[in-house]
C-alpha cells in the first residue's frame, strides 16, 4: 500500500542522503520523492511516497523522527490532501498527426510548451492516475522523453 508523507526538514547538506539511507537500511521502499525549499530558506519540504508491503507505517515515521534534521512529519490520507504531479512529455509528431495530439492534450488540459518539425512537448499536471492516462494515450505516437516530478501534496483546509 502506498502512503504519502510530507516531511519538513532543515535545509542542510546531507539531509537527503540521511533520509534515503534510512529508507534503504530499514527496508522501506521509496516510490517517489520531491524536494524543494519552503518559503523559509532554512527549511525544505520533502514529499515521499512510500510503498509499504509488510512494514508498518508507524515504524517509518518513528525512524524518520529520530533524524535530528527532521522537524515535522505529516501522513496524508487520500481525501485529506490535494495531490498533484507534473509531467513533461516529448512525443513524436508529424504534420499528419500533430492536431490529433493537440486534441488529446486539450482533453487533459495540458499545455504545448515546445514544438518542432517532428516533435511536441506537453506539460500536464494532475493526479498520478491522470498522468498515467495521458501517457497511455500518447504512447502510440512514440514518446521520445518523459520527466515526472513525483507527487507533491498539501493538506486540505487549515491543517
Amino acid at each position, binding site marked *: 500500500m502506498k502512503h504519502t508523507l510530507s516531511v519538513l526538514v532543515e535545509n542542510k547538506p*546531507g539531509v537527503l542522503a*540521511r533520509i534515503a539511507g*534510512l529508507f534503504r537500511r530499514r527496508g522501506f521502499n521509496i516510490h517517489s520523492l520531491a524536494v524543494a525549499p519552503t518559503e523559509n530558506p532554512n527549511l525544505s519540504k520533502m514529499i515521499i511516497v512510500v510503498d509499504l508491503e509488510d512494514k*508498518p507505517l508507524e515504524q517509518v515515521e518513528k525512524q524518520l*523522527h529520530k533524524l*535530528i534534521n527532521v*522537524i515535522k512529519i505529516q501522513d496524508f490520507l487520500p481525501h485529506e490532501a490535494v495531490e498533484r504531479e507534473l509531467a513533461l512529455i516529448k512525443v513524436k509528431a508529424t504534420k499528419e498527426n500533430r492536431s490529433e495530439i493537440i486534441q488529446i492534450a486539450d482533453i487533459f488540459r495540458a499545455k504545448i510548451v515546445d514544438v518542432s518539425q517532428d516533435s511536441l512537448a506537453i506539460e500536464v499536471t494532475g493526479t498520478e492516475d491522470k498522468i498515467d492516462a495521458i501517457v497511455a494515450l500518447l504512447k502510440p505516437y512514440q514518446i521520445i522523453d518523459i520527466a515526472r516530478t513525483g507527487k507533491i501534496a498539501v493538506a486540505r483546509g487549515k491543517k
Partner: protein
Amino acid sequence: MKLTGAEAVVKALEMLGVTDIFGIPGGATLPLTDALSKSKKIKYYLMRHEQCAAHAADGYARATGRVGVCTATSGPGATNLVTGIANAYMDSIPVVAITGQVATTVIGTDAFQEADITGITLPIVKHSYLITDAREIPEVFAEAFYIASTGRPGPVVIDLPRDVQNQIINFKFPEHVNLPGYKPTLKGHVRQIKMAIEELMASERPVLFIGGGVINSGAHEEVKKLAESLKLPVAWTLMGKGAFPDEHELNMGMIGMHGTKTTNTAIMNSDLIFAVGVRFDDRATGNLKKFAPNARIVHIDIDPAEIGKNVKADVPIVGDARSVLAEINRIITEKESTKNNHFKWLEQIFEWKKKWPLKLPDTDDLTAQHVINTISKLAQNRDVLVTTGVGQHQMWTAQFFKLEKPRTFITSGGLGTMGFGFPAAIGAQVGCPEKLVIDIDGDGSFQMVLQDLGTVARYNLPVKVVIINNRYLGMVRQWQELFYGRRYYAVDLEKGSPDFVKLADAYGIKADVVENLSQLEEKVATMLEHKGPFILDARVKEEENVFPMVPAGASLDEIIGGD
C-alpha cells in the same frame, strides 16, 4: 576572542568538560594535535590503533556516564574508527568522534588520505557533521555533545577539514542548544503510567525485565525500590547486568540465549512483562512469535521507535526510565499499595532458583567458569569493574561474575565486537583511576587488539587482563560441535598464538600462567594485589561449552541444559 579553528575545538572541548581524549594523530589533524598540546585541561592518550581509541572512548563513557571522546586523522584513521562507532551505536553509548579531513578545497577529488567518513558512518551514528566553516565550530560541538548524551545516547561524528582547523574565527560559545527537530520526551504520559500500575497490581505472574536503558538513565535505585516494594522478580539482558544486584533474592539472572533456566522459564509463564529500557533483541527473546505467550507487556523506553518494533506493547510509555519509574514509585508509595496476589508465583520462582542454579563444572580441570568465579570471589570487597571481549568467556562472565552496581560490567552487547574488552578496560581505567579494572578476555578476542599493550605500558594503567585461553575461537567451535557435526574448521588458535607471558614481558608488563585448579586462588590473588598492569594467561579446558543454551531461532522454553 580570536582563535584558529583547531584552538576553537580545544576551547569548546574544555568548556564541555572534556578531560581525556583517546586517539592517534595524522596529517589532517596536525593543527588540532598542536592545539591540544597546549591544553592544560585535556590529556591526550596516544593509542596504538584507532579502533582501540574508539573502544576506549566507549569504555570510558560506560564507566563514567560522561561523553567519551576519540580522534583520528582522515582516511584510514577515520575508517579504523568505524567498528568502534558502530559498537557505540548498537549499545546506545555517548561517544564523540573527531576526525580530520582533507582541505575543503580538495574534498571530492580523491585526495591523499581522503575518505567520506560522514557518508561511511551514516547508518551507524546518531548524528554527524562535516564542518566547512570554522565559525560553525562552537555551535557544532555544543550540539554534538548534547545529542550524544541526551535522549537515547549514541555516537556523533565531527569531520574537520584541515583548512578549517587553520581558519581564524571570533570564538563565542552558545549559551544553549536549539535543535528544532530534536526534543526527547523525558516524562512519561500520566494516563499510561496509571495503566502500567494497574497492570502491575492485577498481574499474578509479573516479571520486571530490565536492560541497558536502566543504566544509561541511572534508574537502578528506582528499579530496586519498585522490585522490593512490590516483590517483583527481576530478569535482565546482557546490557542490564549490574543494574540490579546479582545476589539479590529477587534476581533471577540473565534472559535469552545463555540466560538462566529460571528467567527463561519465568518469562514463558509470566502474565506481565514489565520491560524497562530494553529493545527485545533476538538474542534476548529467542523466537519472537513464541515469546512470553501469555503475558501482557508494559514497555518503557526513551526511544519511541523501539516501542512496537519487535513486540507489541499493551501499555507503551515513552520516557526516561528514571523519571517514569520515580513517578510510578511515588504513586505506589503515596497510595501505600502492596501486592499480595503473586506469592504463589514468587514461591515457584524461588523453587526454580534453588533447582536450577548456575553450577561450576564438576571437574578437577581448570575451567573458564572456575577462573571467573574465583576472581569474582576474591574481588568481592574491592571497587571492581569488569570488561569482556565477545564469545564464550563473555557469557561465562555474565553468568558467574557477581556484581551489584551499574557501570561495573562493560561488554559489547548489540554488535558483539571481539576485541572490545581490552581497549574498553583502558578507557574505563582512565575514567575511573581508583577502580580495580579487570578485562576478562578470550584468547581470540585479545589477539585482535593486543598492540595496545603499548598504551597500557606507556601510561602504566593498572588494568588486569585475564585471558580465558582455550586455544579456540570457543563460541564458533561450540556451534560447530553442536550444530555442524563437530567438524571443527578455522577455529583452532593453538598454532600461531604467542606465549602471552613473554609478550607481556616484551612490553615490560608483569604476567603469569595458571594451568591447574590448585594454583588458581593464589595466582588470582597475586594478580589482584599487583599495583600495575598484569596479564594472567588462564590455560583452561579446551572443549567446554556455555550452557544453558537456547539455539538460534528457538523459543526460550526450548532451552538446553541448566538443570
